[in-house]
C-alpha cells in the first residue's frame, strides 16, 4: 500500500514537472523538453502492456490538456512508447534484469545499457511526436535536427531525474 502510494507520488511529481516544463521552459523551436517518456519508462515492468498503454494515454492526455498543446500529440507518442517498452527492455537487458527490475532504474540495470535504453525509448517517443507535430510541413533536415536535439536534451534531463530521485530514495 505504502509502495503504491510512493509510486503514485513519484508519477504525480513527474507529471507536475512535465507541466511546468511545457508551460515555462521555452528552449527554442528545436528542443522540446519533456519528462513524460520517463513516466512511461518507469512504469513497473510486471504491468500488462495494455494497462501501461492506458496509463500512458491518460498521462499524455493530461499533459496535452493542461499545457494547451495539440490534444492527442503527447498521448499518441506515450502510447507508442508504452507499446514497445517491454520488447525494448528485453532487447537491452537480460532475463534476470527483467525479473528483478520492477522499475528499470539506472541502479538496477547498469549505466551504459540504461543510457542506450533510455535514448532508444526517447527516440521512439520523439519520432512519433515530431512526425505528428510537423506532418510534412518541415523539411527533413529540420525534422532530424529537432529529433536529435530533443533526444539529446531529454536524455540529460531523464538521467538527471533518474539519478537524483532514485539516488536520494536509496
Amino acid at each position, binding site marked *: 500500500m505504502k509502495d503504491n502510494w510512493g509510486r503514485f507520488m513519484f508519477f504525480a511529481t513527474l507529471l507536475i514537472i512535465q507541466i511546468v516544463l511545457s508551460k515555462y521552459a521555452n528552449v527554442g523551436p528545436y528542443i522540446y523538453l519533456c519528462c513524460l517518456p520517463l513516466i512511461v519508462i518507469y512504469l513497473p515492468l510486471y504491468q*500488462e*502492456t*495494455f494497462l501501461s*498503454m*492506458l496509463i500512458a*494515454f491518460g498521462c*499524455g*492526455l493530461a499533459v*496535452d490538456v493542461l499545457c494547451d498543446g*495539440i*490534444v*492527442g*500529440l503527447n*498521448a*499518441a507518442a506515450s*502510447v*507508442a512508447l508504452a*507499446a514497445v517498452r517491454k520488447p525494448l527492455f528485453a532487447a537491452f537487458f537480460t532475463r534476470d534484469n527483467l525479473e528483478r527490475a520492477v522499475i528499470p532504474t539506472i541502479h538496477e540495470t547498469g549505466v551504459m545499457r540504461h543510457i542506450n535504453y533510455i535514448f532508444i525509448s526517447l527516440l521512439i517517443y520523439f519520432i512519433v511526436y515530431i512526425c*505528428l507535430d510537423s*506532418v*510534412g*510541413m518541415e523539411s527533413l533536415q529540420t525534422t532530424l535536427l529537432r529529433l536529435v536535439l530533443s533526444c539529446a536534451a531529454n536524455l540529460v534531463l531523464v538521467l538527471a531525474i533518474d539519478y537524483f530521485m532514485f539516488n536520494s530514495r536509496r
Partner: protein
Amino acid sequence: MTGRPALVRIAINIVVFIALEVLCLVMIANNSVVQRYKILGAIREAQSALWHRTSEISSYFSLKKDNRLLVQENVDLQRQLNMYKAMSAKPDTAFVHPAGLYSYMAADIVKSTRGKQHNYMLIDKGTRAGVSEGMGVVTANGIVGIIDAVSDNYSYVISFLNTEQSVSARLTKSDHFGLLRWEGVNPHKATLTEISLNCGAAVGDTVATSGHSSIFPADIPIGVISKIKPVSGLYLSLEIDLFQDFNSLRHVYIVANKDRKEIDELELEEGEGR
C-alpha cells in the same frame, strides 16, 4: 491476466494500441487545422487505395459472369454476321432468312481427349437445349467437331482431331475445294487433299469451310497453307496450319442448320428414287 495465452495477450495489446492511437489521431485532427488536413488526406489516400483493391477483387470474382455475357454476345454477333453474309451472298433474292441459315449456341467443354487417334469431347448442352446429332461444333478459329450422340444435358462430339473425320474445305483465294483431314500426328496440322493442280495455291493462303455440307456454314477460317505437295500428277496435297489450338479449347459454339431436316429429307428421297 498472467494465465492468458500469449497470443490472446498480443491480440489485446494490438487492439488497445490501435484503438488508442486512432483516438489520439482523431483528437489531433479535431484540435489542429493543419494536422486535420494532413491526416484526412492520408486517410482518403488509404481509402481510395483500399477501394481500388476491393474493386479489383470483386471484378476478379465476377469474371465468370462477364465471360458468360461475352460468350452470349459472341453468339448474337455470330448470328448477325451470318444474316449479313446471307444477305450479301444473295443480293437479288426477294427473301432472306431473318436470322441466316445457321443458328449458334454457346457451350462449354466438360471433358476432352487430345492424345489419341480418335479424339472426342463432351459438351454441356444436350437435347434440352435443342441440340441434336449431326450438328457442327465450331469456334471463331475453326471447326471443332461434329455431335455424334446427345443426352438430356450433354453431347458427345467427335473431334476434328479424329483420323476418320473429314470436312469439306476450300481455298479462299480460288474457291477450289477438297477434303480436310487430320493425319493423326500433329494436333496443329491437317491435310487438304483432292485439290486440282491448277488451283494456284501458295504457302500462306487461307483455307476456310466450303459450305458444301449442311453441318458447317461457309467461310469459317480453318488455317493457312504451310506446304504444297503434288500427288500422282493430278492433285495437290496441302499441309494446313490450323488456327484452332485444341489444347486451350474451353468454350465452343454449336452450329445448327435450320433447313437441315429439309435437306436430309430431300437427300433421302433422292437416294431412294435412285
